[in-house]
Structures are given as C-alpha cells and as structure tokens.
C-alpha cells in the first residue's frame, strides 16, 4: 500500500486540480452547450430542442449589433494597439536615457482594473465637462465631442479607452522581441551603409513575426472577453449601441432571465475563442524538433 502511495504521489497531488478543471471548465462548457440546445427560460430545462436558440439569437437585432460592435472594436483595437505598441517599442529601442521610467509609465494602465480606467475615460469624454469644454476654452467655441452619447460613435470611445489600456503591454512584447534580434545582422547592414529606418522596415520588423502573432492572439482574446470596460464606460448604451457579446450574454443571464439565449451566446463566444486559441496553444506546446 505505502509503495503504491509513494509511486503515485505526483498523480494524487495533481488529481484534485485536474478534477476541478475537468468539472468547472469542461463540464461547465458541456452544460452550457447543452442548455443552448433546449428551450430554457428562467430555469434550465433539459429536453433537447435542437438549434432553435441559435436561430433566435441570430435573428435578434441586439445580437447583430453586438457582433458588429465586436468586429469594429476588435479590428480597430488590435490594429491601433499593435501600431502604437510597435512605434513605442522602436522609439524606446534607441538607447534612451530613462528607458526604465518611461516604460513603467507606458505600461501602468495594464495594472489597473477596466472599471477604474473606464470611470476615468467616462469623465474625460463627458460631453459637457470633458475634452469638449477644454477645446472650447481654447477658443474653438463650436467644437463638439459627444461620441459617448452618440449611438453611432459610442463604440469608438471603447476603442479609445481600450487602446490606451493595452498599447503599453504590446510595447513590452515588441521591446522584448527587438532586444532578441541578432545584433550582428544589424551591424552588418549598417556597415553596408543601409540607413536605420530601412533596417527596421526590411530586416528587424519582419523578424518579429512571432511577436505579431502573440500580440494579435492576446489582443483578440482581450477583445472577445471585453466586458468591464463597456460596463464602466457606456453601460452598453446609449440603448444597446455599444453592446458586445459579453454584455449581451450577461444581460440575458442576469437581467432578462433568458438562460437559453445566454447559453447560446456564451457558446458562440466559446467557439470563437477556441478557434483562435486552440491552434495557437497547439503550436506553442508541440515539442520542438530543432
């Protein structure tokens, strides 16, 4: 008995965590997936009903808005964060005197809750008292900036706050990448008389493609999960103009009491994330052969 115990201690130690993950992650995914195939309303029902919830979901205008917003927000958020992060990393890579301090400032938003930064941006973008009044006080009396309450433009305020929060993090990723570029290649190019901007564009940046991939994956993942930022900044409004799938799911689950729709929207989110993360994890965890 004790011999068996000694031999199997590693497995016994990992077993509770594995059991927890199997139940609370995979079991729950299966439960949610199944409930999305039933006619559950306020309480879950377990009689199978096919894809009715999904048909209903994709016929709901509010869900269309959420998907469209996710697309607009996701594309802009990823593209601008990467552009800004790369620019900052290249600027900081020029033997800057106080690099450590500057880097710390660029990255601090990532340590804050989206609720905190959402609250700050809500105040800055406040149509009456925020940026609008600052620009007016500079003499441009007719200046108007009311994106926060404009249903057409409100989603872009989420982009503004999101980029501010995440771009420093992208900078840190790129800076680490830049530091690992082979210095010999760069020296050789400089000796050949190639100027610095061209060295960056045609040698250094192309060699960062793994970093681009990581950054895109992480940002896409952040975008799909975005919930707190929208809640704090716009509350999903005006109306449901800034709803994202995450806020839609929450509204269905906790204020509308429509478990079927909540489960179906959560399952769509899950499938989207899995489509991005599984191939990435697979390629990262696969044993290397070199």
């Amino acid at each position, binding site marked *: 008995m004790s011999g068996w115990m000694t031999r199997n201690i590693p497995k016994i130690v990992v077993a509770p965590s594995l059991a927890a993950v199997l139940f609370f992650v995979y079991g729950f995914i299966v439960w949610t997936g199944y409930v999305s195939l039933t006619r559950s309303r306020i309480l879950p029902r377990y009689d199978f009903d096919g894809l009715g919830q999904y048909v209903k979901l994709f016929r709901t205008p509010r869900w269309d808005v959420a998907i469209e917003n996710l697309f607009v927000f996701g594309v802009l958020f990823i593209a601008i964060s990467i552009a800004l992060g790369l620019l900052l990393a290249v600027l900081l890579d020029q033997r800057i005197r106080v690099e450590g301090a500057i880097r710390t400032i660029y990255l601090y938003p990532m340590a804050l809750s989206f609720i905190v930064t959402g609250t700050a941006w809500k105040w800055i973008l406040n149509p009456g008292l925020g940026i609008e009044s600052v620009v007016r006080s500079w003499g441009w009396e007719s200046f108007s900036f009311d994106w926060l309450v404009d249903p057409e433009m409100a989603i872009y305020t989420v982009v503004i706050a999101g980029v501010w929060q995440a771009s420093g993090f992208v900078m840190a990723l790129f800076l680490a990448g830049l530091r690992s570029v082979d210095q010999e290649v760069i020296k050789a190019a400089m000796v050949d008389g190639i100027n610095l901007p061209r060295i960056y564009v045609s040698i250094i940046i192309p060699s960062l493609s793994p970093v681009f991939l990581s950054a895109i994956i992480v940002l896409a993942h952040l975008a799909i999960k975005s919930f707190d930022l929208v809640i704090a900044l716009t509350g999903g409004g005006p109306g449901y103009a800034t709803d994202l799938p995450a806020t839609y799911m929450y509204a269905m689950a906790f204020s509308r009491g429509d478990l079927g729709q909540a489960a179906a929207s959560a399952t769509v989110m899950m499938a989207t*994330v899995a489509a991005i993360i599984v191939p990435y994890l697979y390629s990262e965890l696969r044993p290397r052969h070199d």
Partner: protein
Amino acid sequence: MTDATLKIAPTGPPARRRIARAVLRGLLYLLLVLFVAYYILPLFVMAITSLKSLDEIRAGSLMSLPQSVSLISWATAWSSACAGIQCEGLQPFFWNSVKMVVPAVFLSTFLGAVNGYALSHWRFRGANLIFALMLFGCFIPFQVVLLPMARTLGLLGLAGSLSGLVLVHVIYGLGFTTLFFRNYYVTIPLELVKAAKIDGAGFFTIFFRIFLPLSPPIIVVTVIWQFTQIWNDFLFGVSFSQAGTQPVTVALNNIVNSTTGVKEYNVDMAAAIIAGLPTLIVYVLAGKYFIRGLTAGSVKG
C-alpha cells in the same frame, strides 16, 4: 580594419551630420515625452478632479489645477458614498476585496507550485495532456461558465458569499499559476532531482527542501499576477456576489452609476483612485515582476 569599413558610410561634413543627429534625438525625446503625457493624462485628470469642489468642476476646465485643494471627496468616497442603497462608501467593499484576494492568491499560488512541480519533474503518462487541459482553462471566455457556476455555488451553499468568490478565483486561476511554476521548474536540472531520489528523498521532501527554496522569484511573479487579476476582476464579482459581499470593483461601478442625487464627479474620481491604488502600488514597487507575468501569459516560456 573596422575604421576603414566605417568610413564608407558617412556622407556630408561631420558638423552638419552632428547637428542633424542632435535634432533627431531631440525629436525622439519630444515624441517620447508626448506619449508619457498621453498615458499619464487620465490619471492626472482623475487626481485633480478628486481634489476640486463640484462648483469648481462645473465652472472650470478639465485640466486646470484645483484652486483650493480639498480632501472631502476622498473622505466621502471612502466612508459615505452610496453604492446602490448602501451608503457606507467604498470602505466595506475594499475590505471585502482584501478578504477575497488574500486566501485566493495564497491557495492558487500554492496549488500552482505543487502542480507545476509534479508536472515538470515527475513526468508521468498524460502529464502533458493534463497541463494542456489546465492551460486551455485560463483562456476560455468566462461567460461560458457563469450559469452553471451560479447554480453550483447555490448547491454548495456558497451563493453570494466571499468564500464562493474565493473558490471561483482559485479554480480559474489554477491554469496560469501552474503554467508559471511549470515553466520555471523545467529550467531546474533533472540531475538534481535524480540525486535526491537516490539519497532516498521523497516527493514532498524534494519539493520543500530543494524546489521551494529556489522559488522566490516565480512566487513573486505569480502572487503579483494573481493579486492583480483577482483584485481587478469584475465579471465574477458582479455575477456571484450580493449586497454586502461585493468586491471593490463592483462597488465602484455602483457608486459611479448610481442615478440618485447630484452627480458627484469628484467623489467618483476619488473612489476610482482608491479602487485602483492597491494594484498601482504593487506595480510601482514590483513592475518588473508584473511584466514578467504578463509576458509569460502570452509568450511561451
């Protein structure tokens, strides 16, 4: 040799090149400073707004410094602002967060250390699969577990309790903490463990005598990561708490979005700073470790 090759590149007289270089450096620093302003600005605006009176906020500009500094809105935010129907400020919720964060961080870090050790140095069949399964768990959109989790917490008698939130954070933090420790422990030579085994040391002896003493750097990274994640969490907090057990992020959102009475922007800003201060302090003191955690979560170790 190097002198000769370097002389090929330069063009133009050296003085002009030196001036051009100085101008470029100047522009570079100017750009960097402008970006510093961009990142600092929201924090700056929050801070000065929290120190102004409401009249001054309405009359003055967003960016102007307060004419008279007043800490009243900080006191209000801390002890008497209304979050929903409860008007005790952020204080009780701040302590809720502390009571939730401390056990959750401790448990998830400890379990991550043991798991990471077992999965990296006692490679049994299926160890890699188990690791992959756990790792995937930290990337799922948590919306997919909200409904069954709410029911399970109800069945366990933990609905709306801080213990329930601790449980949730430990479970969904396991993937990352295991990842951190596993990737750290694989760099410890296998020979060390083999030698210890020959000397008759068992699983736990090796862990407590050899691995734990080598672990402080990764423990710091993990604790900071978990602390930041759990303190900043909103989704689980808002889904699984009830009046009285809400964490500070949920209370902050309730204060800011309470619809009754006059909108007190200065109190909102003070409350936001209070809610953000713990993670901000940790970041300023140990930013290096925070960044290590961030990058470990996105780029493989």
